[in-house]
């Protein structure tokens, strides 16, 4: 509110300003690059098979982002870039989702499909662990499994090292034994 009050009223966008761009000036106002469902599906399958995409998608899914949301975002972003229309994008949505779920399954991670009813999901799994909590619990497991009792050999080696580490005087005027 205070920020709005600070701004000059003349600098604000005029209502309807978004509609004043020249027709065809936006990518989605031009004919799409991929016109039919086959081309659109080929584009998505090719793109989603790249190693770079797989790594990123698996990271995002592991963060708890639902598959539905990720698929929607990808599809809408490509509509905005003028790659395909909304119609073909909506048709391709199930294939994109299935690909994402396949990536999640092959990476053997836990992901949210977004298809389940949230009320039933919350009763099944009330709190979804964040990545930090997951990492902390994994670290705790590693610590529990680790054997911190020093072995006898290690003790002897340490003693030898301590004996060797006698600091000799380095200055010119220092006495030498």
């Amino acid at each position, binding site marked *: 509110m205070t920020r709005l009050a600070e701004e000059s009223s003349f600098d604000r966008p005029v209502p309807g300003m978004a509609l004043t761009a020249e027709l065809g000036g936006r990518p989605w106002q031009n004919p799409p690059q991929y016109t*039919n*469902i*086959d081309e659109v*599906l080929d584009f998505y*399958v090719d793109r989603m098979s790249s190693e770079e995409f797989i790594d990123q998608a698996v990271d995002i899914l592991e963060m708890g982002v639902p*598959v*539905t*949301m990720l*698929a*929607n975002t990808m599809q809408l972003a490509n509509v905005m870039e003028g790659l395909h229309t909304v119609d*073909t994008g*909506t*048709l*391709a*949505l*199930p*294939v994109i*989702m*299935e*690909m994402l*779920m*396949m990536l999640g*399954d*092959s990476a*053997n991670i836990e992901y949210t499909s*977004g*298809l389940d*009813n*949230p009320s039933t999901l919350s009763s099944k799994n009330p709190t979804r662990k964040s990545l930090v909590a997951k990492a902390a619990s994994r670290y705790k497991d590693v610590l529990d499994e680790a054997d911190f009792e020093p072995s006898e050999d290690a003790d002897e080696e340490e003693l030898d090292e301590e004996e060797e580490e006698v600091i000799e005087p380095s200055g010119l005027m220092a006495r030498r034994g």
Partner: protein
Amino acid sequence: MPRRTDPAISAYNNMDIENMPKEKQTVKSTGLLGRPSKSSEGSMDFNNPTIRAAKQLEAIRKYRNEINDTTS
């Protein structure tokens, strides 16, 4: 996006690939007087973009099921 209006959920749930009409093997007639093949009801219409998307989905689903079977 609200769950009710999410196009991804409705598109995925409506893609009923288990009950899709099966592809029929059409026997080509060799003679000139053979009957022209009619597109019978229940066979796949590959001019329909939904059917083409469903075929792709079916292939990926099959592969996904194989992955799940091997990991579980």
